[in-house]
């Protein structure tokens, strides 16, 4: 039928791109799609083809849907009514839409779920009701919707989880109740949602949740509780064996208990920042073999380094602002794929050997109480690029400590108590910070740092080894550099360090002139 209509249109010179029936207010394509969006319409356009399967009337000014308004569109599968001013939908408005799969009603003025109008949409899979002003969800709201898989109720004015209306939605796979005013989650709130994979509850006012509130969510993989008022750790997650992504950042949780995630072995990401954490159970993060990143900041009363046995695929570990004094000797036995390690702002005194963490590229240990660096501390770490040891109390660094750091480009040793700095192995270094080591008085050999581009030193005269203090290049220094690199052949001129602070000058010569 569709082919004949199109042929007739072509014969009539309307051209293949103008289907036989379309409303002048819309743009229709040959596949049965009609786009009437953003045209200032106040009513549903008429004159559309009976075979229309996709109708977009979003971003118009339609305030209500009268009865049977779509009765001539029995093949409609997707209906977009978003961004109108819809406040009323007649109970018979959507009758006849037996094949409708997607209904978009977001960004309207609905105050309740139009349950009567939805009743016979037996094929409906996706229902968007987000960004309305819904305060109530009648018990029978989703009764006829046996195929419903995706439901958006976010950005409304709900004060509680619609437990009753959701009770029979065993096919529901994704649900968002975010950006509402929900204050608590009762036990068994989602009991029959056995197919649910994604549940968003962020940006509500949730203060407490029942210990069994997530019972029945056997297939849940993503749970988003961010930006709520939770005071205690959501123990209810213990009933979520398939959980992969968990967020409860920006809450008021003070402690994470021992074994917090022992029943969630598949966790990949845990977002828990911006909580006033003061205690973290040492066994909380064990055996999470899919966890890639762990970020714990400011758990100020935490004393013991968390055990990470079995959490073998961690690539990034951030643990800052605690009272931790030591790092387990066996840390790297489990963390063999670790790439970034941030243990700054703790009370760490002694360092273990990081040798097992062979893939580590970035270590931050600033703001601790570290006193010395042994020979084996960074042995074998040929991937390490950035090492920050600033603001510690390091007096001694073994001369071979940096021997294997062939990829290190940035080394910050500033504000320690160093009298000397070993440079063997630092052939790739291009930034070195040494300010604040007041005992470090002797000159530094630029030869062993051929790639250096920027250095900060405790005393200005030390810059003269890197940046010419006089206008004429000192020929002795030039010979010395030439010998260091094979003498006869044309020497590849090693560009001098571009930046050395606090400024290169020889105080005596420059202040008192050449007769010195």
């Amino acid at each position, binding site marked *: 039928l569709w082919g004949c209509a199109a042929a007739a249109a072509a014969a009539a010179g309307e051209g293949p791109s103008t289907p036989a029936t379309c409303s002048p207010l819309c743009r229709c394509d040959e596949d049965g799609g009609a786009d009437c969006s953003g045209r200032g319409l106040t009513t549903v356009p008429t004159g559309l083809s009976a075979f229309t399967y996709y109708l977009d009337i979003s971003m118009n000014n339609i305030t209500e849907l009268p009865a049977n308004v779509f009765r001539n569109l029995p093949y409609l599968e997707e209906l977009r009514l*978003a961004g109108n001013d819809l406040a009323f939908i007649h109970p018979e408005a959507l009758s006849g839409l037996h094949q409708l799969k997607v209904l978009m009603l977001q960004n309207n003025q609905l105050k309740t779920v139009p349950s009567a109008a939805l009743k016979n949409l037996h094929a409906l899979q996706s229902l968007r009701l987000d960004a309305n002003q819904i305060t109530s969800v009648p018990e029978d709201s989703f009764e006829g919707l046996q195929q419903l898989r995706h439901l958006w109720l976010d950005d409304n004015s709900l004060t509680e989880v619609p437990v009753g209306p959701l009770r029979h939605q065993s096919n529901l796979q994704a649900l968002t109740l975010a950006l509402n005013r929900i204050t608590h989650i009762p036990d068994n709130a989602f009991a029959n949602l056995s197919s649910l994979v994604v549940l968003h509850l962020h940006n509500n006012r949730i203060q407490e949740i029942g210990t069994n509130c997530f019972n029945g969510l056997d297939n849940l993989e*993503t749970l988003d509780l961010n930006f709520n008022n939770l005071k205690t750790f959501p123990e209810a997650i213990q009933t979520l064996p398939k959980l992969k992504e968990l967020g409860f950042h920006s809450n008021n949780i003070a402690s994470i208990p021992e074994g917090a995630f022992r029943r969630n072995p598949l966790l990949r990401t845990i977002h828990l920042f911006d909580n006033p954490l003061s205690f973290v159970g040492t066994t909380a993060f064990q055996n999470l073999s899919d966890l890639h990143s762990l970020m714990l900041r400011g758990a100020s009363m935490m004393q013991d380094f968390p055990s990470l046995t079995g959490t073998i695929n961690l690539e990034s570990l951030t643990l800052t602002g605690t009272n931790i004094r030591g790092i387990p000797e066996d840390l790297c036995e489990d963390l063999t794929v670790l790439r970034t390690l941030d243990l700054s702002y703790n009370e760490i005194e002694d360092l273990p050997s990081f040798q097992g963490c062979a893939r580590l590229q970035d270590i931050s240990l600033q703001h601790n109480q570290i006193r010395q660096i042994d020979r084996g501390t960074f042995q074998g770490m040929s991937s390490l690029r950035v090492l920050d040891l600033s603001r510690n109390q390091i007096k001694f660094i073994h001369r071979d400590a940096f021997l294997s750091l062939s990829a290190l480009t940035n080394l910050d040793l500033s504000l320690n108590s160093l009298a000397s700095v070993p440079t063997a192995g630092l052939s790739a270094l291009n930034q070195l910070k040494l300010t604040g080591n007041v005992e470090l008085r002797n000159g530094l050999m630029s030869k062993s740092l051929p790639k250096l581009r920027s250095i900060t030193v405790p005393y200005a005269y030390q810059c003269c080894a890197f940046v010419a203090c006089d206008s004429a290049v000192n020929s002795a220094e030039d010979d010395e550099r030439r010998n260091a690199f094979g003498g006869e052949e044309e020497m590849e001129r090693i560009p001098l360090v571009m930046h050395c602070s606090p400024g290169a000058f020889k105080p005596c010569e420059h202040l008192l002139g050449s007769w010195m």
Partner: protein
Amino acid sequence: QHKQVTGVSSQGCQGGCQTCSVYNGCLTCKPKLFIHLERDGMRQFGVCLASCPNGFYGTRSPDRNDCIKCGSECDSCFNRNFCLRCRAGSYLHKGKCTESCPDGLVPSDTMKECV
């Protein structure tokens, strides 16, 4: 006067824009609409939408609503990890797009799903 100073205005903005500029289109949107950045050569052009285009999903927060790219295998999605429709050649099963279906299910090319 505001327009002269920064080229940004709240007058004369199209569709759901709150503020806009001649060069970059919408800069902020009216409440509850999603801002989506379209690329026009080197230029980015902001548009305000009630639903994000195919290949993007909407994220809502109290002060801003954005269109974010779906995973590469999705034609449309609920969030980054949950597809609603797959691209050609893969089949949808519980929010995942896979090239083959789990035991007991068969791929349907018309529905692009495992059924």
